[in-house]
C-alpha cells in the first residue's frame, strides 16, 4: 500500500457525509440507474451501472462508518480496500462517467449518484488513478493558466481579434466594472465569437464590464479530476480577480461545469461566500431581454434542436433560459425526445473529453445523441456549452452526419437589433 493510496482512502474518509451514507444505505440494487446512463444503454454492458461505479466508496462506508461493518472488518469477514480496487475502478469512474446526473434524477430512492462519483474521484485522483489526459489538463491549468495551455498573451490576442471583428469595446482589467466575463478554453480557441457577441450585447444594454488578464479561464480541471485542493486554486484566480476589480457579477460562460464550479462549488472550495454574485451568461441575456435592454430582430429559420447541457440545466439550475432564448432567435424549433431536464449527455462532460483513453467509448455511446438528433430531423443543433459543441462536432464527423452546431449566445449576438446602437 503506497503512501498515495492511503492518501486516497483518507480523502474518501474526508468526503464521507450524511447524504452519502443515506444514499448508500438506501440503494436497492434495482438497476434503474443503468437505464438512465448512456454508457449502459449504448453498450449493453452492465459493468457501467452507475451505482456499481461507487463500489469502493460503498465498501469503505460500510467497513469504517457502520458498527457492523467495523465488526466484520475486525472479524476478518470484510476485505479492506486496496490500491488494486482503485486501479480497476478508474475506468468506470473516469472513462464511463460524465457526471451528467441522469442517474441521480431517476433513482427511486433519491440517490445522487453523480455527486458521489465526484467524491470518489477525490480518492482515486490523489492515489494516482486519474487518467493521464485529465492529469495533464490539470497540470496545464495550474501551471499555465488553462487546460489547453493558453497563456495570457494568447488570450489578449483573441480579445484584440474580437474587438476588431465585433467593433465593440472589450475592456481588460477595468476596475469598478459591474460584470467580469470569464471564458472557457474551448471558446477562446474554438468559438471566440462568443466574446464578440457579448461585447455587442453589453454595449446595447449599456452595462459596464471587463475581462481579466489573469483570470480568463472559467473551466476547472480540478473539479473534473476530482481534486478539491486544485479546484480551489483554480477558482481562486477568478475570485481574486473579481474581488480585486470590485465587480458585482462574474458572468460564467457557455461551459457546463464552469458554471457549477464557479456558482455552486466555488464558495465551498474557498471556504467563504463571494463578495460578488455569479450569473450564467444565459441568465444575464434573458434578464436583459425581459427588461427590454436587449432586442433581437429576425430569426434563424432552419429547423433547429436544442441540446441542454447537463451541468447547466439539470445540475446547474439554469433550466428555462436556454429554451426561452432559443425561441427568441429561432423560428423552427424541433423538440427532441427527453428535452430539458432529462436530456442525454453529449458524452464528453465530466473530464471525459480530456481523457484520451475514453475516446473510443465516448464516440461509441454517442449513438444515443445521434438517434435523438436524427429523430428530431434537424441539420442544426444549438447548445450553450463549448465542450458539448466540440464533442458533438467531433462525433457527428465520425458518424458522417451533416449537422451544424451553433452556440446560443453567438446566435443571439447574430440577431441583435442594433438599430439604435451607440
Amino acid at each position, binding site marked *: 500500500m*503506497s503512501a*498515495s493510496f492511503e*492518501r486516497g482512502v*483518507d*480523502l474518501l*474518509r*474526508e468526503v*464521507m457525509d450524511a447524504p452519502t451514507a443515506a444514499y448508500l444505505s438506501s440503494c436497492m440494487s434495482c438497476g434503474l440507474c443503468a437505464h438512465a446512463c448512456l454508457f449502459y444503454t449504448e453498450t449493453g454492458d452492465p459493468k457501467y451501472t452507475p451505482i456499481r461505479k461507487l463500489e469502493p466508496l460503498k465498501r469503505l462506508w460500510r467497513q*469504517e*462508518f*457502520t*458498527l457492523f461493518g*467495523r465488526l466484520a472488518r475486525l472479524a476478518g469477514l470484510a476485505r479492506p480496500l486496496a490500491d488494486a480496487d482503485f486501479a480497476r475502478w478508474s475506468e468506470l469512474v473516469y472513462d464511463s462517467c460524465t457526471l451528467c446526473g441522469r442517474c441521480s434524477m431517476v433513482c427511486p430512492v433519491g440517490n445522487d449518484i453523480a455527486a458521489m462519483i465526484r467524491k470518489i474521484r477525490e480518492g482515486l*485522483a*490523489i492515489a*494516482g*488513478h*486519474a487518467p493521464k489526459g485529465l*492529469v495533464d489538463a*490539470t*497540470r496545464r491549468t*495550474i*501551471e499555465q493558466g488553462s487546460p489547453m495551455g493558453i497563456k495570457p498573451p494568447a488570450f489578449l490576442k483573441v480579445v484584440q481579434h474580437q474587438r476588431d471583428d465585433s467593433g465593440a469595446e472589450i475592456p481588460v482589467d477595468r476596475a469598478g466594472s459591474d460584470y467580469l466575463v470569464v471564458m472557457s478554453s474551448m471558446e477562446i480557441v474554438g468559438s471566440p465569437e462568443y466574446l464578440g457577441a457579448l461585447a455587442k450585447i453589453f454595449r446595447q444594454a449599456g452595462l459596464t464590464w471587463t475581462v481579466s488578464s489573469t483570470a480568463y479561464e472559467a473551466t476547472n480541471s480540478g473539479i473534473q*479530476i476530482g*481534486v478539491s*485542493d*486544485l479546484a480551489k486554486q483554480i477558482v481562486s484566480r477568478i475570485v481574486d480577480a473579481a474581488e480585486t476589480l470590485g465587480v458585482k457579477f462574474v458572468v460564467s460562460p457557455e461551459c457546463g461545469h464552469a458554471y457549477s464550479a464557479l456558482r455552486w462549488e466555488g464558495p465551498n472550495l474557498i471556504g467563504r461566500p463571494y463578495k460578488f454574485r455569479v450569473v450564467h451568461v444565459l441568465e444575464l441575456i434573458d434578464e436583459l431581454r425581459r427588461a427590454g435592454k436587449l432586442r433581437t430582430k429576425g430569426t434563424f429559420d432552419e429547423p433547429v434542436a436544442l441540446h441542454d447541457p447537463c451541468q447547466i440545466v439539470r445540475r446547474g439550475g439554469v433550466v428555462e433560459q436556454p429554451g426561452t432564448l432559443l425561441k427568441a432567435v429561432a423560428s423552427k424549433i424541433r423538440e427532441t425526445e427527453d428535452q430539458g431536464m432529462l436530456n442525454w449527455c453529449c458524452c464528453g462532460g465530466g473530464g471525459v473529453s480530456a481523457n484520451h483513453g475514453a475516446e473510443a467509448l465516448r464516440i461509441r455511446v454517442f449513438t444515443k445523441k445521434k438517434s435523438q438528433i436524427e429523430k428530431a430531423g434537424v441539420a442544426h443543433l444549438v447548445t450553450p456549452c463549448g465542450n458539448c459543441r466540440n464533442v458533438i462536432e467531433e462525433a457527428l464527423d465520425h458518424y458522417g452526419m451533416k449537422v451544424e452546431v451553433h452556440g446560443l449566445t453567438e446566435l443571439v449576438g447574430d440577431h441583435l437589433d442594433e438599430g439604435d446602437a451607440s
Partner: protein
Amino acid sequence: MTRSALDEHLRRNGVSRRRFLQFCAATAATLGLPLDAVPALAAAISAARRPSVIWLSFQECTGCTESLTRSHNPTLESLILEHVSLDYHHTLMAASGTAAEGARAAAEAESAGDYLLLADGSVPLKDGGIYSTIAGRTNLEMLQEAAKGAAAVIAIGSCAAYGGVPGAVPNPTGAVPIARIVKDKPVVNVPGCPPIPTVITGVLAHYLMFGAVPELDGLGRPLAYYSDTIHDRCYRRPFYDQGKFADSFDDEGARSGWCLFKLGCKGPTTHNACATTRWNDGASFPIQSGHGCLGCSEPGFWDAGSFYAPLSAPIHLDPAVTLSVAAAGAAAGAAMAIANRRRKAAARQVHQPAAVADLEKPL
C-alpha cells in the same frame, strides 16, 4: 361383587334397546367409526363387564367431575358411569378416610392389570411433592402406585393433561401433567377446562369396545375429538373470512353474530369438539353464546395471553425492555457517531494540500 353386563344394567333403568342403539350410533359417529361398526360397538358395550375404574384427583378444582355429572336428567353418560365400577372417586364415593383408601387398595389388587385409571388435576413435584397429599401420601406416590396395575390411564381435564391452572406461571408447586409421571402405560389426554362430557364417555366407549385407547395426536389427545380446531368447524367462520368482527360484546357486530376474533377468541389454535358436539347435550358452546373461545384444551392456555386480546396481539410487550434495548442501540449509535467524527477529523488532520505531482501514477 357381581358385575352385570351393561345392557342388563340399562334395561333395568328403563333404557330401551332402540334408544341404546341410537346412543351407539351417535357414539360411533363421534368416534369416526363407519356405520357397519355400530352393531359391533353395541355388542361390545352390551357385553361389557363392568370394568374397575379408579379415579384419582390431584391438584384440581373438581370442575371435570362436575362437568360429567352435572346433567339435566339421568343421561346415558351418567348411566355408563354407573355401569363402570367406579371403585374410587373422592367426590362421588360414599366412603371416606381409611375405608375409602381401603376400597382403592382392594380394587387395585383385584383387577390388577385390568383397571382403568382416570385422573384429574396436576401432580406437584416441588419440595418432594408435599403441596398435595391424600391420606398423608403425596400425589406423586399415589399416582405411581396406581399406575402400576392400570391397563391404561386417562388424564381428564387440562390440569391432568398439561398442568392446567396450577401449572400456570409461576407454577409454585412444580405441577406437572400425568403423562410426565406415567411413562410405561398408555396415557390418553382428554383436555378441556373442563372437557365435554361426551368426549369422556366416547373415550370410555372406545376402550370398552376395542380394549385399547383410541388413536391419539401428538399431544396425546383422541383424534376423534381433537383433530379439528374450533375455527375449522365454527359456524361464524364465514364472518372471519369476510373480515366482519365484533368490536365489543354488545355492539352491532356482536348482536349480528359476527366473528369474535377481535374479542380474543382462540378458536383458530384450539383443538376440541365444542363447535360440533357442543355442550349441554348440544345446546350451545361459548362462541354461540357470544364469548370467544378461551383455548382451554390447549397446553399452557392460561399463559397464552389475555383471553380478551386477539391471537395476533402480543403477549406482554414490556415497554421497559423495549426502551432499554432501544437505549442500548442509541448508545451504540452515539459511540459510532463519535468514532465516525473522529475518523473524519483524523483524515482531515493528515490532509496535505494536493499538488499536480501527487496525481501522477506512483512507479
